[in-house]
């Protein structure tokens, strides 16, 4: 059996497994638009009360597609590798993965592709359609759809690596739930999910510029809108996508080093 066949099996198994829980995904058709509606009402009130059309480089008309795209992107790239890995380390289940003739990382990555393929059809497309009806949002109303797709691909990989880094903490601590919660809370702010990163003070923006987290939410949305700007730095869509590719390589090196150091601490005693 060649490597591609193995991946195909993992992919289809995961896809079938996810189909079994399709109704859980369908809840996004309600929660997604409701979340956006809440943000819409809040930002509408903010813009009206502020008496200005532009806040931190965003007009209200740009803010709506920004929020929609951030939400849509999260459907495409979501994963909970960190929780899975930490659990597998804690319960000793990682042993069975390590014995398989495939890398744990690659296995989980292919599973993620299978999982998110269904999310594209069940969550992303319907929610985009509903947002079109409610907020007049049109996903094709951009000249950068291909660059957006590239930015989503980078977000997909970066999110996976970040989650993997967090999961690796499971080698060092018996329970890492608290740390994962801290990250979860901070991630909404450092990724640009709740507010565009350009709203922050210049010093904070400079820090964000060098971190990979912006590629998970802020960058795909800015690429979709046509122009990237953070900490006074402006990039065309292809430039920021290229910078994202460099960040992927850096993160890969970090995760690899962390994994190699941490795996030595693993002591599986499963049956």
């Amino acid at each position: 059996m060649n490597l591609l066949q193995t991946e195909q099996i993992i992919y289809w198994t995961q896809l079938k497994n996810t189909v079994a829980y399709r109704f859980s995904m369908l809840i996004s058709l309600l929660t997604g638009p409701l979340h956006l509606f809440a943000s819409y009402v809040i930002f509408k009130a903010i813009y009206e009360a502020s008496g200005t059309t532009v806040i931190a480089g965003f007009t209200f008309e740009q803010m709506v597609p920004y929020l929609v795209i951030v939400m849509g992107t999260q459907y495409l790239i979501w994963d909970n590798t960190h929780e899975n890995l930490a659990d597998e380390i804690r319960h000793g289940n990682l042993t069975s993965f390590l014995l398989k003739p495939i890398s744990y990382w690659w296995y989980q990555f292919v599973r993620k592709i299978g999982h998110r393929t269904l999310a594209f059809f069940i969550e992303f497309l319907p929610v985009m359609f509903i947002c079109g009806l409610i907020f007049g949002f049109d996903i094709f109303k951009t000249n950068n759809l291909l660059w957006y797709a590239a930015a989503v691909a980078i977000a997909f990989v970066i999110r996976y690596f970040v989650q993997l880094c967090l999961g690796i903490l499971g080698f060092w601590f018996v329970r890492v739930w608290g740390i994962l919660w801290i990250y979860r809370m901070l991630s909404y702010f450092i990724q640009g999910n709740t507010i565009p990163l350009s709203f922050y003070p210049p010093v904070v923006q400079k820090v964000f510029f060098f971190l990979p987290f912006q590629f998970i939410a802020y960058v795909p949305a800015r690429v979709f809108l046509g122009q990237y700007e953070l900490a006074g730095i402006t990039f065309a869509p292809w430039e920021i996508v290229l910078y994202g590719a460099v960040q992927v390589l850096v993160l890969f090196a970090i995760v690899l080093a962390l994994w190699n150091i941490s795996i030595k601490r693993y002591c599986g005693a499963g049956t």
Partner: protein
Amino acid sequence: MIQNLLLHWQFVKLKYASRMAYRFDFFTCMFAFFLFQLSGPLFVGVIFYAGGLFPGWSFPQLLLLQGTLALIRGFSFMSFFGLLWNTQDHMRRGTFDLLLIRPVNSLWFLVMNSFDEEDSGQFIGGVAITLVAVSLLPELQGSLLAFFAILLLGVLFFLSLALLCSAATIIFIETQRLYEFIDIIMIFASYPKTIYSGSIAILFNTLIPLFVAGNYPASALLGFSLDGVLIAAVSVIGLLTVSMFIWHKTLRYYTSAGG
């Protein structure tokens, strides 16, 4: 009643004691929940920094609203909101039957068992935000008594939500994503009544009386108008009665799957 309360206290002590086995995780969890409460104020702070405004509310006033919500949320999550995941856990494991045959009121026992020691971080966060907000305000022109009375209504509103979600879990079992609706309610409750248009404001004052969890208690302390608070109070009592009724009703439809 006294026996139930004593039993409740024993449960609380036991929960803290067992959690101390993993101290590091316990304290990081508490810290995480403390940080979680700062997300609302952080959002508002960044908006104000960037030049945005909220209609009729200054930053310290909005901080007080969010602190109050955090206080109610923190207390509720610590004391009884674990009902949601506790019910689900019992359903999945098939241990709900064991709970029903105990010589204690089932709902009381479930609530007791739902005490979440990690969420004390949320409660501390709520107290801290409220105190910071009060220190930033020049003077409070409202009534402390009204503030605490509405605070209690806020807790009852959360109790109603917890009971409804727990009832839904008894019937549907897999209700993990139901929590997302609670998150959405929290988002709406984090902002003043003034940002909502007429029909939405009426909805949030009657069917889903979420203004009692943030807008009204903060307004009571600030001396702002409390128009509609009585309707909201009646709605909360009504919602609690309905949710209690539904919870006990769903118990009759419970078909054991334990093994």
